[in-house]
């Protein structure tokens, strides 16, 4: 046994977009153990339920994360709808679906850029982020916000995408798809990218299930689990999750790459079949005392869980969020054991950490 040293990694590191600290216990070039530490950007957003009423909290929940923000507002609003026993109109469900998928596209392309930056492929990083800008333009045209959509309210949505605008969106997504396929070929077929990602950080199917990994990390280990399987409108559109059996960094990259094209197809299908009708259901009264509601939503990084409890006033008693990264950190420490120091950035990046969600 060699001499053990501890290398601090983060919270500020060239490959890290998010502040997470890792104590890497090293034995020569091998990582023996990785001890994560978070707590750099805790903002106490859950506590704000005591100061902001349940309608205003939608906008607070949307600001939990800077990338998967719309998913958070969907999760919160749906949890409160669940608590109050409200059924939202079908058009609102489709609109939420379209914005969620647009968000997934931009989040995954952003992540691909960060990954390319992580293994030192600067021009690929630039191409990814240039492409992401076009997705953000679609978001801005439809909702007014580049990233923060602000379209959700408890009971539905308050912004509409007119049916006449749908063909324009599909046309833009088709042109994005052409460029995107060129970029994804660079990720999947390129030899240097393959050398960095193949057989690095293998997470077995059993480990992924045991450590409760979520989202693309779980699906890359061969488990076809996705919340979208059980919710509308995806269930009617015949959604099947994308999986891969290898469980390494390459598989996680491949799953996310294929999810973008799947999201484009889903948006097209939703735009074709979107029903007409109301955008929101009117609310009656406040959340009843002692009532509880929850909702699971598939974010770009995995499943988020929302729990809310009412107390009869306009303020909620409790709001609790479980975010995907807090679960995936366990899987990350597992795959870091026994890897080379040079591979650590790839593994940390391929779980797509979002620490601002995790700490809230």
């Amino acid at each position: 046994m060699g001499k053990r040293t501890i290398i601090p990694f983060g919270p500020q590191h060239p490959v890290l977009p998010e502040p997470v600290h890792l104590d890497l216990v090293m034995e020569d070039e091998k990582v023996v153990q990785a001890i994560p530490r978070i707590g750099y950007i805790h903002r106490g957003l859950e506590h704000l339920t005591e100061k902001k009423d349940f309608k205003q909290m939608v906008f607070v929940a949307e600001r939990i994360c800077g990338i998967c923000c719309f998913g958070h507002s969907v999760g919160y609003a749906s949890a409160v709808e669940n608590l109050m026993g409200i059924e939202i109109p079908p058009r609102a469900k489709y609109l939420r679906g379209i914005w969620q998928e647009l968000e997934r596209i931009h989040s995954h392309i952003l992540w691909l850029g960060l990954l390319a930056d992580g293994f030192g492929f600067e021009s690929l990083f630039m191409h990814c982020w240039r492409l992401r800008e076009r997705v953000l333009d679609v978001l801005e045209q439809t909702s007014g916000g580049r990233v923060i959509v602000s379209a959700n309210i408890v009971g539905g949505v308050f912004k509409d995408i007119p049916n006449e605008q749908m063909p324009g969106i599909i046309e833009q997504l088709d042109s994005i798809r052409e460029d995107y396929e060129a970029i994804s070929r660079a990720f999947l077929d390129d030899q240097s990218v393959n050398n960095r990602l193949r057989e690095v950080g293998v997470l077995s199917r059993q480990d992924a299930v045991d450590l409760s990994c979520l989202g693309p990390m779980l699906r890359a280990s061969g488990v076809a689990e996705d919340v979208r399987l059980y919710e509308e409108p995806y269930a009617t559109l015949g959604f099947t999750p994308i999986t891969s059996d290898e469980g390494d960094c390459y598989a996680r990259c491949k799953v996310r790459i294929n999810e973008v094209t799947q999201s484009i197809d889903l948006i097209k299908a939703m735009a074709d079949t979107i029903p007409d009708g109301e955008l929101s259901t009117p609310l009656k009264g406040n959340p009843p005392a002692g009532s509880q509601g929850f909702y699971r939503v598939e974010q770009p990084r995995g499943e988020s869980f929302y729990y809310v409890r009412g107390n009869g006033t306009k303020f909620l008693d409790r709001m609790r969020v479980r975010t995907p990264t807090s679960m995936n950190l366990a899987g990350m420490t597992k795959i870091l054991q026994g890897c080379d120091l040079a591979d650590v950035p790839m593994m940390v990046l391929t779980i797509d950490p979002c620490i601002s969600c995790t700490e809230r």
Partner: protein
Amino acid sequence: MGLFHLGKMTFTSTFKKPATRLYPYEQREPFERTKGHIVCDIEECIFCGACARACPTSALRVDKPDRTWAINPFDCIQCSSCVLVCPKKCLRMDNGRPAAATTKQVRLYHQHPYSQAEKEQIAKEEAERQAKIAAARKAAAEKKRKAAEEAAKKAAAGGEATGGEASAKGDE
């Protein structure tokens, strides 16, 4: 080699315009729905304060006696909550981005000041209202006093009557 997979894209982008813009000199037209800033049509406003209560960041101040509507643009998160709740639909989201500011100022909208005739009318209405209230109070007090007197009389009469009965019973 990444160059071969990205070759076409890299080659074509050599002959294209840059993807970025020389921002302050060259500006893009905002989209129709772009969240720029909140505009208030102050002449329509009735100063109900619904917008200020709905605002998640408490960026709005509505003052009914002064007839002012103020927004702190540095607190506003462009969520359109105020636009949604406004009963007169006098608030809207403008798609123009606000100009850069050197100081943190509140944007204040002031409804036209009252004219002399309006002031007199308001004073007259207020005086009438006060007079009505005073009259109603006086009437209520009078009614109460009368009711109390009646009750006292009744109680006295009833007391005598029951006293008489009791004495009568006692006699038996």
